């Protein structure tokens, strides 16, 4: 369904984010992409819908070669790929309903969307999706009045209104508490099963990845270092992906302080990467 062939991305800053990545994802498969911060996970999924332009390589989505599309064709192709973001990326000042309906923008003309006159079937589909994620009482609330978990549900509904073939999910749970994280992952998993959607989910939490994915791909420094089933992950493979660490003691009380410190450490790194990313231009197209 989705095939990457020798995908390479070098940023203009010289950062080599992806090196000759090849992989194939069949219909309906939920793939978790794991790896340390800066491994290139976000770059990979952004190359697929070309929010980031790949430097080399090919990407094919059910017979459409994505890397050579004109900007009009690219817009059509983007409708087939729903994206879900870490910080939800909802439009804060628009209502929940407007946010969900924005998933339909690729199918509609400017004036219709400007006047918010969406076709009746689209509105009722949007409402059904909100019902499915349990948010139908909130249609007229502004997006910034919702909690994190609720916002992410709106983000999911927006992506699904595109009637996508594949979901591109960038760290959906990184800003959520553990319980909400599991609920969101379960929701994504169920929706993929209901609609036979494939998904690439970038995720930091290895346990969640194992719990909800059909397949795990480990990325390190822009290269695939593991590709297998969730129950194949063991200490040796985690070391291959993340580097040396005593993987078996993490849950024990004595090790807690140390691992807490480590958690702070990785958070700082993630923040730094996030800051760096937020600088570049929004770009044209």
């Amino acid at each position, binding site marked *: 369904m989705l095939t990457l062939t020798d995908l390479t991305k070098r940023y203009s800053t010289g950062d080599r984010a992806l090196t000759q990545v090849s992989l194939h994802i069949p219909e309906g498969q939920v793939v978790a992409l794991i790896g340390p911060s800066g491994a290139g996970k976000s770059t990979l999924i952004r190359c697929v819908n070309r929010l980031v332009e790949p430097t080399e390589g090919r990407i094919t989505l059910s017979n459409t070669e994505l890397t050579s599309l004109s900007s009009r064709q690219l817009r059509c192709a983007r409708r087939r790929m729903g994206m879900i*973001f870490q910080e939800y990326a909802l439009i804060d000042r628009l209502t929940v309903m407007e946010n969900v309906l924005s998933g339909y*923008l690729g199918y509609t003309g400017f004036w219709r969307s400007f006047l918010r006159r969406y076709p009746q079937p689209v509105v009722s589909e949007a409402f059904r999706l909100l019902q499915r994620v349990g948010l139908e009482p909130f249609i007229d609330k502004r997006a910034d009045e919702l909690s994190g978990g609720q916002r992410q549900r709106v983000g999911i509904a927006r992506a699904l209104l595109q009637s996508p073939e594949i979901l591109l999910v960038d760290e959906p749970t990184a800003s959520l508490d553990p319980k909400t994280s599991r609920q969101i992952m379960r929701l994504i998993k169920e929706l993929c099963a209901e609609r036979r959607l494939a998904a690439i989910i970038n995720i930091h939490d290895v346990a969640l990845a194992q719990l909800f994915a059909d397949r795990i791909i480990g990325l390190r420094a822009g290269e695939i270092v593991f590709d297998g089933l969730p129950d194949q992950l063991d200490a040796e493979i985690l070391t291959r992906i993340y580097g040396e660490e005593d993987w078996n003691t993490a849950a024990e009380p004595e090790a807690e302080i140390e691992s807490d410190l480590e958690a702070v450490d990785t958070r700082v790194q993630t923040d730094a990467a996030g800051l760096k990313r937020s600088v570049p231009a929004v770009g044209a197209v």
Partner: protein
Amino acid sequence: MNQQERLAAAEQGLWKPLPLIRDARYRWLLIIAAVVYLLLAVISIDVNWARVAEGLSRGMNFIAAFASPDFTSRGGDILDGLIESLTMTLTSTVIGILLAIPVGIGAARNIAPLPVYLFCRSIIAISRTFQEVIIAILFVVMFGFGPLAGMITLAFATIGFMAKLLAEDIEDIDARQVEAIRATGARWLQLMNYAVQPQVMPRLIGLSMYRLDINFRESAVIGIVGAGGIGATLNTSLSRYEYETAAAILLIIIGIVMATEYISSHVRKWVQ
């Protein structure tokens, strides 16, 4: 003090922030130079005290006029000037803002391609280089005395002001929201309407109100150089030494500015 000494001192509990200019000699040189320049500048202003004394008494007359402002004897002129000024203010603000929006979008580096960006930035630069009075003189020469010249002047100044602030606002928007809308396959105009507009709209409305304020005040000033409105009425009354009428006009201007100030602060709060 070098790094080593600073660390040692800090260990002793002695720490001061680094000075802005490291080299002490250079620092003192700059301070002395600034003081000397200031002294020379003050000395070079020559004051004609006799003229000041004469002007002072005239000034006192003017201030005394505020105790008995005369709204009625030139009431018709004042009303005409006022209506002209308000019309000028409103039309110039609306036209200026409508033109400033495309220029502002074009001048935002994160959404406009480089040639468009440079073009729009130069429009802004031209509009902002010249003070309203200078532009007004130019337009009065081009279009003759009256409110048309005033309106064009204020619209032109509004473009530079609004476009610059709008562009800066757009450059500061949350890029993730833009990314999310782009990922749905939205076209460019939809991207502007869904991802950019909601983020900049409250400030745009606030700035528009603020500009309305400024344009009214400016309309009084540029009237003095012939661009019509209440400024022209004020100028006439001053040159006829009708200080009571002038005082009345100034009081009206103050009242209107305060009213718009009050309204605009409310509108700004409401759109947040």
